[in-house]
């Protein structure tokens, strides 16, 4: 005799199950696993650089052909490794490998082409920054050409960006996080609070519901779509409110991916300062990294002052340390206000303080551990040893894998953005959100350039 049990599609995961059911934790496991493996190879006098392949600079098609024929097998090996790792993740979080595998191969091949275009020595001259090219190619394919819906299984924007951020941690000294973290938190907190209050009170003035105003405010002030959906759950938003906030965040975030680097370039902001401004004023992690990496790329061609790493480091410190990690606190406080001030009619339960940890973006733990690990590994090496041994064997291969992860993410933003499917917002939410955006951009500029400009322009990333 056998017994089978059927339940509804609702998912029950708690406690330890989170460790293998959430993308955040998988980004930590894979990111730290890669860093650990790289270190083991480094200690044995070898390197993971063979598989962490990336296109070198090229100027003629024959040079590119030679490069590809020499490294072709490495690209296949890298694709196979990514496929094994990512398909495992997809299976654990409940996606179908049958859909994920072809979708990811599509993402990898397109990303490789974009990466190769970005390595052309004239790419900057024609503004072919890989993050922007990836986004535009993705937007074109999803909105003009069209793709079958099942391919979405491979376009995991958030997972790719979180993995990339953990790997980024391995290339940032922990001393920088300690040194710049408090300033990042101060700057981001000022802008987040002011932006939230502006959106919230303008929305209320226009007659929008408290909870809807909070969902809009969090989206503009904290961490974009993630904040909107987290606060929506915390304050019990109406079903139709989160998609409106999501639409506004996505549209403004895409505009800023192109606008912020362009304006920063026109103002000749140093790389670190531009990165800080983008970190303060962009909404989602992936969108901001696309803008920051794109702007940092200009430093490589000496179009702006500073280094590419400064733009990405300043952005990450402000966005991840200054804004993302506080989402649990925002959700808890707003849930408490919803219960005690805004009146609750539909539900009667208490506010869970456990959500502060529950909503914490766990990939940040991987980012910090990776940074501590590499700082300990590098500690004791002279600058000459670092440049001769540590950098080529350990840091550069991790950087190459990070760039792959980011490119997958930027391309996936475009591939998943279908403007026709976004909810229409209505004039009142648009006015409230856009007012907050205007204040955010001006205040973010003032703090990043005028108040802390000297600080962000001189951050040391090695």
């Amino acid at each position: 005799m056998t017994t089978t049990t059927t339940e509804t599609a609702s998912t029950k995961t708690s406690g330890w199950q989170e460790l293998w059911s959430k993308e955040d934790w998988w980004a930590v496991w894979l990111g730290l696993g890669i860093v650990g493996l790289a270190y083991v190879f480094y200690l044995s006098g070898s390197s993971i650089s063979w598989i962490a392949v990336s296109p070198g600079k090229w100027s003629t098609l024959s040079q590119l052909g030679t490069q590809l024929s020499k490294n072709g097998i490495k690209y296949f090996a890298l694709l196979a490794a990514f496929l094994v790792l990512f398909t495992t993740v997809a299976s654990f979080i409940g996606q179908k490998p049958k859909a994920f595998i072809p979708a990811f191969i599509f993402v990898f091949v397109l990303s490789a082409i974009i990466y190769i275009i970005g390595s052309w020595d004239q790419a900057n001259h024609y503004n072919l920054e890989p993050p922007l090219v990836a986004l535009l190619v993705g937007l074109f394919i999803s909105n003009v050409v069209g793709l079958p819906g099942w391919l979405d299984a491979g376009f995991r924007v958030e997972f790719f960006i979180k993995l990339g951020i953990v790997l980024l941690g391995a290339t940032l000294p922990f001393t920088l996080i300690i040194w710049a973290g408090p300033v990042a938190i101060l700057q981001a907190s000022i802008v987040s609070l002011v932006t939230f209050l502006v959106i919230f009170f303008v929305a209320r003035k226009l007659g929008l519901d408290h909870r809807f105003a909070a969902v809009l405010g969090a989206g503009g002030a904290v961490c974009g779509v993630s904040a909107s959906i987290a606060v929506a759950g915390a304050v019990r938003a109406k079903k139709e409110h989160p998609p409106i906030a999501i639409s506004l965040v996505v549209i403004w975030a895409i505009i800023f991916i192109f606008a912020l680097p362009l304006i920063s370039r026109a103002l000749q902001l140093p790389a670190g300062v531009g990165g800080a401004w983008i970190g303060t004023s962009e909404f989602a992690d992936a969108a901001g990294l696309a803008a920051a990496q794109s702007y940092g790329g200009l430093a490589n061609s000496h179009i702006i002052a500073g280094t590419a790493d400064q733009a990405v480091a300043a952005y990450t410190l402000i966005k991840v340390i200054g804004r993302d990690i506080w989402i649990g606190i925002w959700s808890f406080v707003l849930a408490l206000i919803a219960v005690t001030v805004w009146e609750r009619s539909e539900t009667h339960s208490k506010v869970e303080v456990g959500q502060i940890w529950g909503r914490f973006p766990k990939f940040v733990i991987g980012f910090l551990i990776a940074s501590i690990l590499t700082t300990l590994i590098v500690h004791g090496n002279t600058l000459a040893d670092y440049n001769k041994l540590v950098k080529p064997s350990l840091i550069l291969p991790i950087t190459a894998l990070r760039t792959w992860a980011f490119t997958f993410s930027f391309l996936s933003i475009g591939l998943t953005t279908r403007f026709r499917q976004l909810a229409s917002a209505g004039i009142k939410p648009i006015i409230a959100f856009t007012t907050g955006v205007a204040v955010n951009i001006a205040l973010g500029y003032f703090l990043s350039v005028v108040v802390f400009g000297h600080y962000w322009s001189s951050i040391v990333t090695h």
Partner: protein
Amino acid sequence: MKIFKSITLRNSGATCQKCVHFQNNPAIIEAIYPGLKTMSSGFASVREQDGLCGFHQIYLAAGDSCPNFTPIVTHLHQKA
């Protein structure tokens, strides 16, 4: 103080998580909210176990509760 009476570590008992009206499957939430996976994810930590209540038409935490709680029925099929 009212504020302290309104706080708990985690709600238990007849919570939405165990209610038939509650839907929090990440893939379904992503399908219901287009754009969620563009710059976030149904599988992200920030979303915790939140989901949609089909009764009240609100998006809320799995630890929430209301007077309209209806437990999920578990069907046992016995085969000889």
